[in-house]
């Protein structure tokens, strides 16, 4: 397609405008979320000072210190602005449950969660993408039926129920894997992460499988596949070309995968008693350790917003048809 310089310029302008709109929208959503997260402290049942003091003795000095630290005598919008400023500079306050700064608490547990999610994601992609391709290519065959059944169970089965079944089968009944905890680091930790990762990968894999299958089915019906076949290209090559085009909807499904992963890690870590961010969230929620809950919620919201933004942008930049349509508007 030949584009005149003028057309190209207007295309760039329109893309630029889209980018700005998207980024502003994301920032807007994050601001609204930050207000909601901030008000959590004030809306939570019970006295705010007591909530912040936790189990510590509530001497008048301690109460005064808390009031000063959280600027409770200031008007509400000032409290929010101060809180937002602290949060943006990485100061999330103190955990009343663990008696440590929130950033330390989160930092010390980030590793386990990152390793677990990474491993699960890797497993899910390795199994689900080829299975999805095969299931689309041989639509209606036994492999497709198996994949569809697996997809339905994987999408519906809650992570913790699957985890407990695996835990019973492979840690109690057949004692192959360790039962609880994260091990002593290195390979031992990796070994402890296998069962939780498989548990998480089942749900993740089901989503990726469904995305892959739907996208591949659509691509296999397009003209270029028919022409490729008519020209005598080997099946393998045709499938690879189709997969390259199917990759766009699969990649942009990333935010869906991430959304699942956030809930899934909480459940998987709780099931296998792994000291990660998920169990931290669960413990903090039950203890009403609000500073930690606020920090974790914001962390997740920011991560998801950024990835969703990147996925949307990838969508625009990967697919020339979308680009053309956006600039035509």
């Amino acid at each position, binding site marked *: 397609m030949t584009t005149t310089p003028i057309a190209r310029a207007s295309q760039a302008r329109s893309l630029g405008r889209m980018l700005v709109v998207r980024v502003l*929208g994301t920032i807007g*959503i994050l601001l609204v*979320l930050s207000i909601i997260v901030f008000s*959590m402290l004030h*809306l*939570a*049942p019970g006295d705010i000072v007591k909530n912040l003091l936790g189990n510590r003795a509530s001497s008048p000095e301690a109460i005064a210190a808390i009031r000063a630290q959280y600027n409770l005598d200031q008007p509400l919008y000032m409290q929010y602005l101060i809180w937002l400023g602290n949060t943006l500079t990485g100061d999330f306050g103190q955990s009343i449950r663990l008696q440590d700064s929130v950033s330390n608490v989160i930092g010390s547990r980030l590793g386990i969660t990152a390793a677990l999610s990474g491993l699960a994601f890797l497993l899910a992609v390795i199994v689900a993408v080829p299975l999805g391709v095969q299931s689309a290519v041989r*639509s*209606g065959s036994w492999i497709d*039926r198996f994949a569809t*059944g697996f997809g*339905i*169970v994987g*999408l*519906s*089965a*809650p992570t*913790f*129920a*699957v985890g*407990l*079944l695996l*835990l*019973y089968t492979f840690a*109690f*009944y057949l004692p192959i894997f360790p039962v609880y905890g994260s091990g002593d680091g290195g390979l031992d930790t990796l070994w402890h992460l296998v069962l939780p990762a498989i548990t998480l990968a089942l749900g993740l894999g089901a*989503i990726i499988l*469904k995305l892959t299958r*739907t996208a591949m*089915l*659509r691509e296999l*019906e397009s003209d270029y596949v028919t022409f490729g076949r008519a020209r005598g290209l080997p099946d393998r090559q045709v499938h690879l070309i189709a997969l390259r085009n199917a990759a766009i*909807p699969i990649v*942009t*499904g*990333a*935010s*869906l995968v*991430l959304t*699942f992963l*956030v*809930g899934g890690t*909480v*459940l998987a870590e*709780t*099931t296998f008693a792994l000291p990660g961010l998920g169990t931290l*969230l*669960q413990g903090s*929620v*039950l203890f*009403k350790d*609000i500073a930690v*809950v606020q920090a974790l*919620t914001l962390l*997740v919201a920011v991560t*998801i*917003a950024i990835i*969703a933004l990147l996925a*949307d942008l990838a*969508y625009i930049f990967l697919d020339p048809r979308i680009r053309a349509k956006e600039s035509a508007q």
Partner: protein
Amino acid sequence: MSSTEAIVLAKLPRSRRRHPVAVWLSLALLGVVAFLVLFGNLIAPDATAQSILDSLLPPGSPGHLLGTDELGRDVLALTIAGAASALVGPVCVALGSMLLGILLGTVAGYLRGPIDFIIGRWTDLLFSLPLLLAAIVVAGVFGAGYWMTVLLLILLFSPSDIRIVRAGVMEQAARPFVEAAQMLSLSKTRIMFTQVLPNVWSLIITNSMLNVAFALVAFSSLSFLGVGVAPGTADWGRQLTDGRAIMIDNPAAVLVPALLIIGVASAANLVGDWLGQNLTRTGRS
């Protein structure tokens, strides 16, 4: 694009009949669980009755087919009683979210303009939160009980219903019969709810069935984490939390509710998929 309905309602390019046996089995399982919800208290003894003498018995003990848990409660009776908690909440969530979806989705899709914009940003905001995380945080921090959790989940589930109804209504609103109704100067409310909405029902019903499946997963996940259901309540998710510690002595206390949750959620999902494939084809062009 990147939303749950995109994946659950992704229409398959070629029509293929789902193996009907699986659908019948799913309906049967859902029927049995519904029966337990309605008549469970007639066939099973009081689930929360504790017997101190025979606490923690293995499965197959006399008088306790599935054994007892730590507190000496009969696992079978507890599981039967848990059916109510497992099914009633999710069905209420699906119905409530359907109602919100019909109201807001029809209004947004038919009237468009500023009200559509506001509803659209509202669904954007709710969609940007991971559902389970939001439920854990809000229900946990506020110490919500069962029915507060139902309300919370209705709120969190509604964006998908709103978007689906809105898209369906927008598709219908461009059709000649709507123009005809406008020519007859029917009121906007009447056109929306008596002319346009009936054509979108198939989409709504399909999504509500899928919502039951996902709400069941969300509910049991919350109660597994200790949120939304009071300790001591007969609830499958709760049973799994309590049963984890006694897995060696009485595996049935964990395996039976776990398999039930997986089975019922899968069944509801399968029926939803099947409805989607068979209903939506007639409902839309």
